[in-house]
């Protein structure tokens, strides 16, 4: 026999399924990202951006998030490659370690500058239209 407010149990079940689906789809993933580039005598020499999914959960709070456009992709490397300029500018904003060495031998100068983002855990929220990346403090 149907209750007065319609099929209540059915609508409840449907809502719970939708809710769990949303939660599972919006679940954040964690990645370790490091970045480093070397400038020798004012010429860029080497640049590397390493991305790896975290095997253990990271602790901490997110700060300064970055939102990038996404076309329903789940591959973070591809997304970051597509928005490399924006992402590298963002990494600069987060903060890089500066390691500069300069040597002047008999009035001839050589210099090496290394900028590094030490391996940091980032929380990544994938969505159909955008990806939200935020480092953990």
């Amino acid at each position, binding site marked *: 026999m149907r209750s007065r407010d319609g099929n209540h149990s059915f609508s409840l079940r449907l809502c719970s399924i939708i809710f769990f689906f949303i939660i599972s789809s919006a679940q954040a993933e964690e990645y370790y990202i490091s970045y480093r580039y070397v400038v020798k005598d*004012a*010429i*860029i020499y080497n640049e590397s951006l390493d991305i790896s999914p975290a095997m253990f959960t990271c602790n901490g709070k997110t700060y300064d998030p970055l939102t990038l456009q996404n076309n329903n992709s789940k591959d973070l490397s591809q997304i970051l490659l597509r928005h490399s300029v924006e992402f590298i500018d963002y990494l600069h904003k987060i903060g890089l370690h500066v390691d500069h060495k300069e040597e002047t*031998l008999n009035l001839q100068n050589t210099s090496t500058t290394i900028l590094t983002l030490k391996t940091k855990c980032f929380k990544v929220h994938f969505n159909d239209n955008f990806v939200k990346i935020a480092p953990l403090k």
Partner: protein
Amino acid sequence: MKYSLIFVALLSISSLNGVETTQEMQMQNTESASNMPQSQEQSAQSQIIIDDEISSNNNEEAVLSQEEPLIITVTGQGVAPLNTTSPAQAYALAKRAAIADGYRLIAEKVKGVRVDGQDLIKNMMVKRSTVRTSVHAMVRHANVVETAFKEGLCEVEMEITLSHSDFAQ
């Protein structure tokens, strides 16, 4: 005879006056000479004071205060490598190098530079002169204000805002 006596008397009077005037002149000269060093000293002192003021104004370093933040501006320079495939790549790589230089300059200004020097002198001649400088720092929230690319050289104007709370412990 009478006229000659009068002439002699006039001459003697004029000579006496002349001595007095020369004495007066000498006195004046000695007075002015004694005053000259004083005036020179005064002018030199005033010059030193002015110089000190100018140098103090020129060397006046901006100090971070609790009331207002301090903005540091630097210009980093970078060169495009020779083996690039396109002008766009050359521009991007030169800009990256210029940003690194800007970061280094900011670090130098905010944190300082370690300088080591070594000179090797043999038979009264400098054989080898070495100067090593190094900078280690962590720079965050630095902004690129302006970028200029001309003849393979990229210049990036960068600025960083330092507030007192950043250094508060």
